[in-house]
Structure formats: C-alpha cells, structure tokens
C-alpha cells in the first residue's frame, strides 16, 4: 500500500478543519481543544495537533490530508507534518484581512520546509465582506504563477477543485521538472 499526503495549512480560523471534513471519506480525526486565549476566542475550539482525513484511491494507494494547527504557539507541529508531503494548500480567510500577513508567513515557511507545489485557497468567498481573489492575490503578494482559487471550505465541489488544481501543479512539475 502506497500512502501519500498533502498538508492543509493557513492561519487560525481560516477553515482548514472544514476543508478536510468536506472531502475526507472518514470522520476527521481531529485534535480540537477549547480556546484558552481571549484574543483568539473567535471560535470555541481550535486544532492543536493536527486534523487528519483520508481518501482511498484503491487497494494500493491512499491519500492522507493533514491539517496543521492554526495557533502560532503550535507551529512546532508544522515541520513534523510537512515531512514527505506531496504538496500543500494554504487556506486564507478572504474576509479577515488582518490574517493575510500571517498567511503569507505560513506560505513562505512551508515553502522553506519543502519546495513542493502549492495552491492558495481564498476561503469564505460566500461571506459578504470577502475580498475578491484578485485583490487577495495582491495583498498576499503572490507571484502570477501561483494559483489562487476561490473556495468555500464547506462545499465539497469547491474543495475538489482546489485539490485537483494542486494535483495539476504536481503533475506539471513531474512532467516538466519545474521546481519553481
């Protein structure tokens, strides 16, 4: 049995857990805890170790999706989770510009861990105050070659698009030998 993994990362409360829940064939093994810091009490719980989802391709191949903890004090988990990843998705909450700088930092950090392909998911595009993808791209200072795709993490079809775009990037890298 061959197992491959992708990492789903992004700032606190960006929608990583929802993203994995939408597509995983198993109940996501989640390590959420009640939030203790007042400043981070945007939601009741957060992921402290990882979320874990699975997509079985066939008897010989399984894809694992690992969601990273969103709070910065758990960032020691990032490197552990990034080991051996096929590629990664950076989830950004399009409606919270105060998190954009952190999203960029996370993106750069994961690129430093492993120069694997990645895509940026502009999440919460259904929120009225969400930034359009083009504006988000500018705010994140994304290179034109980086795919930034609109996303609603609770919508399975949107999540599929993101993963297929990432796989497309990986395939392109294999076929062209491009490491950019």
């Amino acid at each position, binding site marked *: *049995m*061959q*197992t*491959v*993994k992708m990492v789903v990362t992004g700032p606190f409360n960006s929608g990583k857990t929802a993203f994995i829940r939408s*597509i995983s*064939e*198993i*109940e996501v*093994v989640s*390590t959420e*805890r009640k939030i203790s810091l007042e400043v981070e009490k945007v939601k009741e719980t957060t992921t*402290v*170790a*990882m979320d*874990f989802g*699975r*997509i*079985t*391709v*066939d008897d010989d*191949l399984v*894809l*694992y999706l690992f969601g990273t903890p969103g709070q910065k*004090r*758990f960032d*020691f*988990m990032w490197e*552990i989770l990034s*080991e*051996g*990843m*096929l590629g990664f998705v950076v989830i950004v909450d399009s409606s919270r510009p105060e998190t954009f700088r952190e999203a960029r930092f996370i993106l750069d950090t994961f690129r430093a861990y*492993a120069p694997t392909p990645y895509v940026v998911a502009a999440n919460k595009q259904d929120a009225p105050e969400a930034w359009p993808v083009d504006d988000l791209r500018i705010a994140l200072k994304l290179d034109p070659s980086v795919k930034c795709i609109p996303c609603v993490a609770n919508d*399975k079809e949107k999540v*599929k698009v993101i*993963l*297929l775009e990432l*796989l*497309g990037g*990986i*395939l392109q*890298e*294999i*076929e062209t030998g491009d490491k950019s």
Partner: protein
Amino acid sequence: MALQGNLRDFSVTKLLNLIHIAKKSGTLTIQGPNELASLAFLDGKLIYGQRGDEGGRLISILRYNHLLTEEQAATLQTRPEAANDKELGLLLIHANYLTQQAILQSLHKYLNDLVFRLFTWNEGIFQFYLGILPPDDRITVRIDLENLIMEGARRMREFEQLQEEIPNLDYALKFTDRPDARLRNINLSVEEWRVVSYISPKNTMRQIARANRLSEIELRRIVYGLIQAGVVEILLPEGLPPPPSLAKIQPMPKTPEQAGLIKRLADRIRSL
C-alpha cells in the same frame, strides 16, 4: 431474567435496538472486560445508568462532569441528603448552586458517555432484568435511544478506523528520539497525561488502558494523537516488521513514473 448472553454474539447496538423497538422496561447489566455497567429503561427509553459500583449516584455524576470539586463532593457526602439523589438535587437547587436544567444536562451527558463507551465493548456478559427499575431516590431522565444508536454507530466507524491505524494493543510505546522536536510547549489533556505517565517498554498499550480505566477506543484515540504529534512511537517486538499502516509516509520521488499515480489521485477526487 428475560435475556442474557455475550456481546460477541449480540452487540450493544442490537441490544439497544431491541429494547427501543420492543419498548422494554427493565435493567441491562453488562460485565465488560474491566468493569461492570448497567442501564435502566422505561418503555424503551434510557432513564438511568451506572458505571462500576459508585457511578450513577448524583454526587459522582456531578463530580464526573466537573460541577463539583473533590472537596465539595466530600462535604456533600457527609450530609443526610446525600443518601437520596432527589433530596440532594433539591438541596443544590435551593442553595442556588445548580439549576434543575444543569443537573438534568449533567445526567444526560453521563448517560450518553456511558452508552458510547459500551458501544466499544466487543466482549462481555449481559443480562436484561425485565421490569427492574432504579430505586425511587434516583433522578431519572428520558433519552430516546434512536439518536444514541445512530451516534454510537458513527463512533464505531471511527473506532474501526483507529483499529486499522493501531491494530495491536499488545505493543508498548516509547517516546520518540527526536532531538530536534520542540515539544516543550505541547498541551496535553488530563487523559493524555495519564497515558503518557505509563509509557514504558514494559507496559503494553492494553495494560495502559486497563491501568487508566480507558476503553480501547479512548486509548487508541489518545495514542494516535500522540503518535501523529511526534511524541511517541510504537515499540515493536524484535523481529517483527512495522504494521503497514504505521509505516512512515515517504516523500514521493518526482519521477515520470509517478505521473500515473497523480492521475489516479485526480480521478479519485473527481469521482467523490
């Protein structure tokens, strides 16, 4: 005695379904691998439950749900009202310490947790005593079994997944030898700490579960989280290969041959 047998032949799900559909009244006792539990039903609804010898009393339930401190529980035990759960409940309500709603919610949570725990038992002698109900001094609730059975089934699927990841509890655990791991800031729950405190090459996971009175699913869930966090790893007996599901996920070499693998992944995701 109306019904008796072993969970191997007649699972908890089947038992609860039977009681629910036949609207039975009585008490079901199950002697599990490590402990005894009993549930009482009225007209097919769950009204009361008890785990072990001391469970089921209001003080222990409130303590279980962290609504009483150890000291408060000890003080209450000395009160004459402690012998009667209904009187004790009234005392707490009149003292404005708890509302009736909080007490009932606490009972619901205790019973739900107890039933979910029973779902993970694959082995145990059960007996159903028709018409036997809890003593009058106990506070009872009415919980519809249908939702409990559905949620229990969902948890069983999770259990099967965890069983696949950690197939054998007869192995020991050891702390990972990772000088680079920055684990000093890790936050562990009380249960995780309890498991961690027993980690030694001498203790199998099954022994750790028994020592902490954890069910297999609770132990597997905790160990799985600790493994994924890089805190512990399974110590395999010498000469045995690692279980395939625990083999480290290797980086995929980016060779042209792997393009087919990526296309298979893409096809699978499209089909979801």
